[in-house]
């Protein structure tokens, strides 16, 4: 038995030490918002935040996560009110939607570190997450919009 801290809750999971976090989340904890796209850290759709840093759950063994705080899309906000989610809604970013958990969490991590990102910051931070539907132009717009929401909420 291993303990994982996911979205602020401790979970006991019966997993071998080398089981990737992705499958512990999806198949053992039933948190299916984190997706499987490649299994080799190439597509980013399995991205979760570990202590706030984007990480590929498909290649991270559960044994590496003791004592760390894991955030999945289900835990980003209780009501889709995170600035990134608000901006994503306003710009209608998702198409098929399959990559969007990875996109949203990666964008949230970017804004936490760089509240007013440049276009180059956005391209660099978001490059690990593929989108076969080509939502990239809207992701750029939505991140700029989210940055504005963050700024206004700070000043307001």
């Amino acid at each position, binding site marked *: 038995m291993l303990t994982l801290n996911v979205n602020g809750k401790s979970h006991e999971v019966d997993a071998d030490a080398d089981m990737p976090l992705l499958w512990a989340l*999806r198949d053992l904890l039933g948190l*299916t*918002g984190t997706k499987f796209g490649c299994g*080799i850290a190439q*597509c980013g759709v399995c991205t979760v935040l570990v202590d706030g840093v984007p990480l590929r759950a498909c290649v991270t063994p559960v044994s590496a996560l003791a004592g760390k705080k894991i955030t999945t899309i289900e835990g*980003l906000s209780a009501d889709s009110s995170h600035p990134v989610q608000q901006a994503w809604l306003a710009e209608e970013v*998702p198409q098929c939607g399959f990559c969007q958990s990875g996109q949203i969490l990666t964008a949230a991590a970017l804004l936490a570190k760089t509240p007013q990102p440049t276009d180059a910051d956005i391209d660099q931070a*978001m490059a690990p997450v593929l989108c076969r539907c080509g939502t990239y*132009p809207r992701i750029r717009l939505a991140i700029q919009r989210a940055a504005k929401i963050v700024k206004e909420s700070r000043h307001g």
Partner: protein
Amino acid sequence: MAERIEVSRRNFLKIGAALGGGLLVGIDAAACGRKDIAPVNNAGQQGIFAPNAWIRIGVDDSITLLVGSSEMGQGVMTAIPMLLAEELDADWAKVRAEFAPAHASYTNPIIGRQHTGGSTSVRGFWQPLREAGAATRELLIQAAAQRWNVKTAECSTEPSVVIHNASGRRLRYGELVEQAAKLAVPETAFLKEPKQFRLLGTSVPRLDTPAKLNGTAVFGQDVKVPGMLIAVVARCAVFGGKLKSVDASAAKQIKGVRHVVEIDAGVAVVADHFWAAQRGRDALKLEWNEGAAATLDSAQIRAALVAAVDSGKSARNDGDVNQAWQNAAKKIEAVYEVPYLAHACMEPMNCTAHVRKDRCEVWVPTQGQATAQHQIGRHTGLKPEAIQVHTTFLGGGFGRRSEYDFVVEAVQISKQLGVPIKVIWTREDDMQHDVYRPATYNRMTAAIDQQGTLSAWQHRIAGPSIFARVYPTGIKDGLDVTSLENAQNIPYAIPNVAVSYALVNAGVPVGFWRSVGASQNVFVTECFFDEAARAAGKDPLALRRELLKAHPRHRAVLELAAQKAGWGTPLPAGRARGIAVAESFASFVAQVAEVSIEHGVPRVHRVVCAVDCGMVVNPNIVAAQMESGIIFGLTAALKGEITLAKGRVQQSNFNDYPLLRIDEAPRIEVHIVSSTDPPGGVGEPGVPPIAPAVANALYALTGTPVRKLPIRI
């Protein structure tokens, strides 16, 4: 109100009461689309799942619309309800969409079965669903008129409310449903005139966005059924290979592995979770009879195409190409080649099935509910009414999910084990067991006469046929229309045109890939057109305009894209523009790409896209689909290539079959032509022009034509 429609005589509507007092309206879309009058025949299925209800209006005013088309990102889960809601005069804020089960009443009138493909959803359902919405609105008006004891002609509607014009009395739809459920199908109804539209033509928010922001959207991969086990299947790496022997003893030792079973596709390892199933598969000792395809490689396939290209069957022969060739002042010749491509849906293939003795349920991201149901029937012996198909969200489709291989796998495993089984493909499985966009070899010739006119055009295509695999009787005189679209019908006014097609069965399974034949032929024809323009000493845009006089919609999008892109205005050093236009799926798209070369690689900075897709249902979704098609097409233009060696696909994952990333994505502007033509498709038409627009920009930049995809400089 303009168009009067017959409702009761055409028999496409069924009225009923919902549990809890609401109104149910069943629609037979295929019957509705027909002009002749045929009775609805869904009687046998009613009792089991009662799915024959497209519209449910509750006493609480809620409106639930069932969508029989598959949502794979293209926005159909919003567009289809918009068609119904418009004529129903529904309050959009009260509209919810649900996925419909597999059932004949969701038949797409263009395709003839319940299937999503060929950019046909809005085109196919445009008329029937608006008629059904109008008839339902009429029904609610009748209910209100009865209640008030007035004539229906004295009543009108505002969103989800019937109004008595003279007295100003109002009844909400929810207050009318119980009474409406007892009425007969109205005899006639009226369709709105476009100027009366409240929803169509506006960017109402997509209904599926909220679920795609918080992890609640259920894709096939996310399906959970009590007692379900997870399966991963070992398949022969060579197409058509068969299992010779399997030693599963090591696999069965792995913690979590429950069963190892043989199915037609290979050997399935069934476990408590994916991780165990995958490790179990790795531990199988397998021997295969690889069969005839075991020596296949890309060079061999190419050689077969080269050998066949001059002996194709004629698909078009206008005028006398040979004569024009002989009289030419200038002749140009070129070979164009495109590779096999994988679909690479972001969500790898999967399906969940539960086969019982007397019935079967599947949960599947599919584009083809009718095909899935039919195939399940073949493999279980069950009747369609005993086969329930639940469609989930699709993590991409692009034609790949028109297939049913993944469905059969899940059904065969569940049938053997009697428990629900979710088959999950890895990315490697998905890439190496796809049905690929055909590779083709094209020999092009063109003649310019003494006057500088493009006098002859010859296009010889050699390639494998999609129809040969999926619809052999669709091949007429050796011609597969899917391989010829946008080649046979190039729109330019050229007096002598010859197009031929040599069908070469190369041993690699091929299938429908977003925009199908247009995905390759528009690259070939629009690039060779630029070569011809240069030979004739003309600007590529000017020559297109000149030769498209009979095609005003092509011309209009070309001119709009050119104008917005600043065609002919100076660019920074090292940059050039290219343009291309295509009609596909009843829509017209032109794109201008602005390109440079950075570190030996093409960089696309900006794409300006003009689209005429007829009457627009939702402009924001149209724009999103153009952006999507452009990015998808850029991946193909700049990166995509599937190759074979020893009968095996050499690419396996995104490390060797890369997709465009955000830092490579251009700025994209989409301009929509306002139109009163019937709606065209939007899911695919954004794809075809981008590869030639980029290639033509590189040609302008370097003077060397790009004749092969993916583009290598």
